[in-house]
């Protein structure tokens, strides 16, 4: 496959080395990435990538580390600007993969890692760990965004948890936004930390993949404590703090939401209404004069979490 590297126009291999242990999905992901790069990069960059791939697939660790760092110098740093067909292809090979904001260097870096041969999770981690440990900001963004694309999902849990502790905002965003890995793989405690950390950093929950699927009673208690802490400090409570309580309301939560619905400001009333109505809580909506208006907005799709608390941009 790699011999194609010498032909013109340059073509980069679109399949993983045959000896690599892999799932069909990983192979498809590599293929999709290669297709995107193919149509966007100059021949010289494609040739360079093909040469690196050859080295990496033969087990050249140093080659992977060096080329991973050098990628932007060869590919530039433009956005991929994927078409809707290309995005659909991404979603098809990896449900939940949303590379809308990916750049060419990010795609090339991910593709290079997928060229590494491995028969076990340990063999894959033997290159992923050093890359993570020495990563500069944009490298870390690329690595964490690619977590859902790597095989052996169970082997990356600790790494994902480590990333959630990061104080580098763009790194945190790479994990929490448009990334199906956390929702699919984290235990409740780590998921709850992710939600809290997101809110704590003033990042809207709206960009989190499957944000409404992992709600749990413990998270509700943590969020209520957080809300009270903010109130005690005279700080604003994020509007979407209530969102993960949907379907898991306890009496303390219901009481607070009812209060908010009656005496909060208009946006707080909307957040409270959404939480209560989506929980089928049987709450009493007669109180506020505006309740029927909120119900109208909700029924006509004008009141959603995404509209109320839009995605954070950066």
């Amino acid at each position, binding site marked *: 496959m790699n011999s194609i590297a010498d032909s013109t126009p340059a073509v980069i291999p679109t399949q993983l080395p045959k000896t690599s242990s892999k799932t069909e999905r990983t192979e498809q992901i590599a293929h999709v990435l290669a297709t995107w790069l193919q149509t966007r990069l100059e021949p010289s960059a494609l040739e360079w990538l093909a040469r690196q791939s050859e080295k990496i697939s033969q087990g050249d660790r140093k080659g992977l580390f060096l080329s991973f760092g050098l990628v932007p110098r060869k590919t530039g740093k433009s956005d991929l600007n994927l078409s809707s067909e290309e995005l659909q292809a991404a979603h098809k090979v990896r449900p939940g993969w949303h590379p809308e904001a990916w750049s060419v260097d990010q795609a090339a870096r991910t593709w290079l890692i997928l060229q590494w041969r491995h028969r076990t999770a340990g063999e894959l981690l033997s290159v992923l760990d050093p890359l993570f440990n020495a990563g500069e*900001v944009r*490298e870390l963004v690329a690595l964490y965004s690619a977590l859902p694309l790597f095989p052996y999902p169970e082997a990356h849990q600790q790494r994902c948890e480590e990333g959630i502790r990061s104080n*580098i905002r763009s790194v945190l965003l790479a994990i929490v936004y448009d990334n199906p890995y956390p929702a699919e793989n984290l235990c409740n405690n780590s998921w709850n930390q992710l939600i809290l950390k997101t809110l704590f950093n003033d990042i809207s929950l709206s960009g989190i993949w499957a944000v409404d699927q992992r709600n749990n009673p413990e998270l509700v208690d943590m969020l209520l404590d957080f809300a009270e802490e903010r109130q005690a400090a005279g700080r604003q409570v994020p509007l979407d703090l209530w969102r993960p309580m949907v379907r898991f309301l306890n009496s303390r939560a219901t009481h607070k939401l009812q209060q908010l619905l009656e005496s909060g400001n208009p946006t707080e009333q909307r957040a409270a209404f959404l939480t209560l109505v989506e929980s089928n809580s049987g709450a009493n909506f007669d109180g506020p004069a505006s309740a029927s208006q909120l119900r109208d907005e909700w029924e006509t799709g004008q009141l959603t979490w995404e509209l109320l608390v839009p995605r954070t941009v950066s």
Partner: protein
Amino acid sequence: MAFIDPHIHMVSRTTADYEAMAAAGVVAVIEPAFWQGQPRTTAGSFQDYFATLVGFERFRASQFGIRHYCTIGLNSKEANNERLADEVMEMLPLYLTKEGVVAIGEIGFDDQTALEEKYLRLQLELAVEVDLPILIHTPHRNKKRGTYRTMDIIEDLGIAPHRVVIDHNNEETCKEVLDRGYWCAFTIYPRTKMGNERVVEIIRQYGTERVIIDSSADWGVSDALAVPKTARLMEQAGITKDQIEIVTYQNALAAYSPSGQFREEDWLNPTPIDQRTLFQGNSVLRGGQSPRVDEAGEELIIR
């Protein structure tokens, strides 16, 4: 006026410094890898330090709209621990090729021992291999001899002087450094290095060609605003704006741009991905503030 501080150790500075620097017009900084005031004892400490330089510190700067770059190298003091030095040498190639690494440095002499020379030479050769500019730290003690000896070694290896910034110069070293064709940097650092009244005189005497002003502010008593303050002092001394811009911005840009990692567009017109990842709080991109330095008075003078 926009400034570059091409030598400052931000890991030791507070967010108040970052705020003041941004307000004073500093748009980009270069953070050379150095020692941390006391010797490290394990290679892991270096690994995490280098990772911080290309990771968290880059982010921290971005919050204030300042673009952060670094140089990577084994400093002269810690070159004297041979076992450790060998381990650090082994990890350098991984970091030298990272985004935003604009030179190998700061390297050079401290006590001028044989081990210091060994690792200086090895790193100079490495700089040639990876095609990066070089930042030289000149020693505090026996300075003149150490500076000349460093240049002799560089020339012995056939490295062109325009690839090399020699830093921490003073009245005694600068003529030779300039005559031999190197970038000649002055560190405005109270008491132990250069004062800014003195540097004004030096610029009057030698001009601005290949002259660079920096702060080297670190964990010691130093001044993160040394570059903008010196610019103000030069203005008061009647040095033209063009000349001030050359020594506080243009020359640093020219000296480190051969790395391919130091471009004006990075902060003037960043790519969308850079804008998303590295400009969370950029005041330049979000409407801007009017740059200022503390008004004249004793504050402005660094002796």
